[in-house]
């Protein structure tokens, strides 16, 4: 039974990915890619990785989908002309077809070699899950994934928040959108009602996820993604205008979480090494960092969608 469910889910994943990349029409490609995101969330659920299922659902359906659809809206001018379809079919001329064939062959060979290699893998010599379980008591949290994310490999997470911040700074460097802003349609009253109903619940759920992160799947990323999704919904319902370049307070909000994390990391140097949480205060410090990260990640992820979105282009 399980293998049948997993097998079918894998087939669905491959089909939706293939159709998304090979579909002639751009809009259908984006919709199928969003479906691929949903199927990935189910796959993570089957791989008993609930944290990732949560993150995939929150970021995949909520944010990446909205980002792609917004980009799609800008690409296809509303002038009735069908989208500049660049058909994904291989080009007509012979050289093009040979090139496509050879690349497909190389990719196929790579996949075959990797698949063959996967079956010969010996059992791994180092067993990290046992080590994580052994050190769980000193990590200050009860949920293993949060312990690894914030404590054992907290340095990865510090750099990763920097990656998110630098993506936003890259966005600011580019300034207002040159493409046609997605002119909002007529205000949809039902959408405003839905937004007023859902947004408070989303904020409550984000708080719940942040708090749950210490002892069960949840945490700053999923909570931040949920806050960002709430901001996206408000923007789509035209209750929240697009952001121009951020003022002093918004910049503090954007970089605040990262600065808190950096400050704690530097302060903990006195404990002997970077990010060495004293076991007694580890839980409290992690919660402080996660709270700061939730707010900042929510603002950054919302900023990735809202910055210069729909800003009228002043030529």
């Amino acid at each position, binding site marked *: 039974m399980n293998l049948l469910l997993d097998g*079918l889910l894998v087939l669905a994943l491959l089909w939706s990915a293939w159709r998304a990349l090979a579909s002639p029409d751009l809009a259908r490609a984006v919709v199928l890619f969003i479906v691929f995101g949903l199927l990935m969330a*189910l796959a993570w659920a089957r791989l008993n990785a609930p944290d990732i299922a949560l993150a995939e659902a929150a970021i995949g359906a909520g944010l990446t989908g909205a980002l792609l659809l917004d980009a799609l809206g800008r690409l296809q001018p509303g002038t009735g002309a069908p989208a500049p379809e660049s058909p994904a079919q291989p080009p007509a001329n012979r050289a093009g077809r040979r090139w496509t064939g050879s690349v497909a062959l190389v990719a196929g060979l790579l996949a075959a070699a990797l698949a063959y290699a996967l079956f010969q893998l010996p059992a791994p010599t180092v067993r990290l899950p046992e080590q994580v379980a052994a050190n769980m008591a000193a990590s200050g949290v009860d949920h293993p994934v949060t312990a690894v994310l914030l404590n054992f490999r907290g340095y990865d997470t510090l750099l990763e928040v920097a990656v998110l911040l630098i993506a936003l700074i890259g966005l600011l460097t580019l300034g207002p959108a040159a493409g046609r802003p997605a002119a909002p349609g007529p205000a949809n009253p039902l959408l405003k009602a839905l937004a007023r109903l859902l947004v408070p619940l989303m904020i409550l759920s984000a708080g719940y996820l942040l708090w749950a992160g210490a002892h069960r799947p949840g945490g700053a990323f999923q909570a931040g993604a949920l806050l960002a999704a709430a901001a996206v919904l408000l923007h789509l319902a035209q209750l929240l205008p697009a952001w121009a370049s951020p003022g002093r307070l918004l910049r503090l909000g954007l970089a605040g979480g990262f600065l808190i994390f950096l400050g704690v990391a530097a302060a903990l140097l006195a404990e002997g090494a970077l990010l060495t949480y004293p076991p007694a205060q580890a839980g409290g410090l992690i919660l402080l960092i996660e709270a700061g990260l939730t707010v900042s990640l929510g603002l950054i992820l919302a900023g990735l969608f809202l910055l210069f979105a729909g800003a009228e282009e002043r030529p």
Partner: protein
Amino acid sequence: MTGLEAPLALFLLVNLLAALVRAARGPTAADRMLAALLFGSTGVGMLLLLAYAGGGAPLVDAALVLALLAAIAGVAFAQRAWHRDREGGDDA
């Protein structure tokens, strides 16, 4: 734990795929947007069944998040498609 959850999850997945193939191939743009509807209902249903088929309570949180966000993908698409339609043309 009625032992029914896993087979029902499989049944839902079959439903989801059949509906997706139909929606993806649907001629008009509106048909394609039906795929967005499936998120809310079938996607959440599957996550709930998987939660009780051994996936554990956290999957219920995932279902809650998906239920909250299902509207966004659908509305973002409608908003974008709606914008296209005001000027009349369509790629149907």
